[in-house]
């Protein structure tokens, strides 16, 4: 029996057994999280469309995916940080979105900048917020959980201070709303031109570039990676910067979609992002998991949320279902995942 396919070969730590028993027959296929997710999406989608004829209509699918784009970007950033290991997690990702969005609003409304230029500056600002996290974790050595918990507080409150409880506008100029409200061939722009390219580039980079391979290596065993010459600290700082940039991209898309920047725009998104990353098969201890799995998890969460919405289940209840889903998906990782995954 060979190793389960979703374990990247590059991530196999030196000294790990070359092959693992596959457990129950058929579990090798099912153990690939992506097969499981795909089956779940098909089943849930079929049930939804049977229950509500509205489910598969174009405008419903459209509004569904508009919502999914922002949370998908955050989940991608979260997945990258978690993959880098060392307890990596970014709780500040929602606050980073709020603060970057407010920063952009400050530029467009108070400084009168073009929204496009302000968007670019917001991305730089997001990178800076990620860099602060990276420095707290990588240079000072604060455990990621606490470092990003304090910046969750810090960024979120700063967004409130800047807006003084109000909201910013000034985005509906120079065709900026196209990004968040337009559609090409029926597919929302932020999905076609932002979310899918972001995932495609990231997935390609994780497979084909050196930094991508290093991320898996560092996530599996930072000591071994350091011994073969990988700069662990720089790589992890880079991952936090990436997460910050992706949160800022989410902020830009949100501003273009809703045309307002609110200090609470990203509140609670950290939970959703972590849930999606873990549901997508990213091992919370780093080094294992596929970004394509995360993408499928985004699709699943969007389908489930939309279904619940159509069934008249409110937003607040969806949060609880997501929380339960998070715990169940981690338990699933242990039950149907390959053996030896127990921490």
């Amino acid at each position, binding site marked *: 029996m060979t190793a389960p396919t979703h374990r990247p070969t590059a991530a196999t730590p030196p000294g790990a057994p070359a092959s693992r028993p596959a457990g129950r027959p058929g579990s090798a296929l099912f153990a690939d999280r992506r097969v499981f997710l795909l089956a779940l999406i098909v089943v849930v989608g079929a049930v939804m469309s049977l229950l509500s004829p509205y489910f598969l209509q174009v405008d419903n699918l459209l509004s569904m995916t508009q919502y999914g784009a922002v949370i998908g970007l955050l989940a991608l950033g979260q997945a990258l940080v978690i993959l880098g290991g060392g307890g990596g*997690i970014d709780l500040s990702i929602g606050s980073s979105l709020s603060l970057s969005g407010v920063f952009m609003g400050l530029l467009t409304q108070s400084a009168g900048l073009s929204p496009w230029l302000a968007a670019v500056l917001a991305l730089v600002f997001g990178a800076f917020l990620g860099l602060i996290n990276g420095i*707290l974790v990588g240079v*000072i*050595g*604060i*455990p990621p*959980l*606490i*470092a990003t*918990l*304090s*910046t*969750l*507080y*810090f*960024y*979120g*409150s*700063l967004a*409130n*201070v800047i807006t*003084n*409880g109000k909201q910013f506008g000034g985005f509906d100029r120079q065709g900026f709303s196209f990004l968040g409200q337009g559609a090409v061939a029926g597919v929302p722009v932020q999905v076609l031109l932002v979310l899918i390219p972001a995932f495609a580039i990231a997935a390609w980079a994780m497979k084909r570039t050196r930094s991508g391979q290093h991320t898996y290596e560092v996530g599996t065993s930072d000591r071994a990676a350091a011994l073969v010459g990988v700069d662990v600290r720089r790589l992890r700082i880079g991952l936090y910067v990436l997460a910050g940039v992706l949160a800022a991209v989410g902020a830009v898309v949100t501003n273009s979609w809703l045309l307002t920047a609110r200090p609470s725009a990203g509140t609670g998104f950290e*939970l959703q992002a*972590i*849930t999606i990353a*873990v549901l997508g098969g990213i091992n*919370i*201890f780093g080094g294992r998991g596929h970004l394509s799995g995360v993408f499928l998890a985004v699709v699943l969460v969007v389908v489930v949320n939309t279904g619940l919405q159509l069934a008249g289940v409110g937003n*607040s*209840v969806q*949060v*609880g*279902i*997501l*929380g*339960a*889903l*998070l*715990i169940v998906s*981690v*338990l699933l990782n*242990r039950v149907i995942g390959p053996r030896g995954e*127990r*921490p």
Partner: protein
Amino acid sequence: MTVLTPEPTAGPASSRTGRSISSATLLRSGLMPVLLVLELIVFGVLSKEFFTAGNLSDLVVNSGDLALIAAGMTLVIMLSGIDVSVGPMLGVLTWGVATMTGAGLSPWVVVLTTVAAGALLGAVNGTVIVVGGVAPIIATLGMAAVYQTVLFLLWGSRDLFTGPVVPLLSGQKALGVPLMVIPILLVFVVLAYVLKMRRFGRHIYAIGNDATGARLLGVSVGRVTFGAYVLLGALVGLASMIYVGRVGVVQSNSGSELTLAAIAAVVVGGTSILGGQGGVVRTLGGLLFIAVLQKGIVLVGVPALWSGVMVGAAVALAVSVDVITRRQVDRRERGNR
């Protein structure tokens, strides 16, 4: 049993004298008292109202619930765990308190039921973490969302108005001192004693320092961890009654603001987030520091919106000092061997 001897930095119980006290160690244990005194002086000078008896007892009344949660959180963090579900958990429990009080139940029945219910919710967290093997941050993040939804469903767009359950858990004063000081101090004294002197407490230090080593020495890691989460839940139950008395209303998001504040108090107090070091007395210091900061900011005239920024910065600063000094101490110890 050597692993169970008190931690050198854990306080006065340390009797090992061979090692000289370095500046790093001094900074670790002495920073908080110095900062606290400094803070009191600054606010005392800037605001005339600060040192009035009324303001000081306000300070206690306003952070009594937080104090109890932070005390329990200390144990969990010392085990290098965390519980980010305490706020929503408290919210669910306050709904129970308000409903039971509204139904005219005897106050002490309400107290006992609420503490038991809190312990039960803590046991749910503990089960997911210990039996399910889910990382504490993931488990409690998920449970936080679940509790939030449970409260939302229970609340059902109907705010419940209620008052203090028993005088001992309220802001009612005797000789100018709020009565709630008694149970709160009792909890801290008992926990400090247990951590220092009892087997459960020593096991917490042992597990926090080296879980594998502790397990090899026969410490029942799972049971102690489970116990810590149950204890935290029970304390959240106790806190929920102070909260109800203080706020007077149960809403759909009651309690959610307490989670980060509790963790912040523990961490700012100097209990190491890496586990194995710290104690509830330190948490009391951290709690005072944050409470004074929040109150002082308002008295001095800075908009209340800034308090989150200040607390976030204080947490980052405190943890940075902790991590850097701990690294230095470790390095020197390694050099000495």
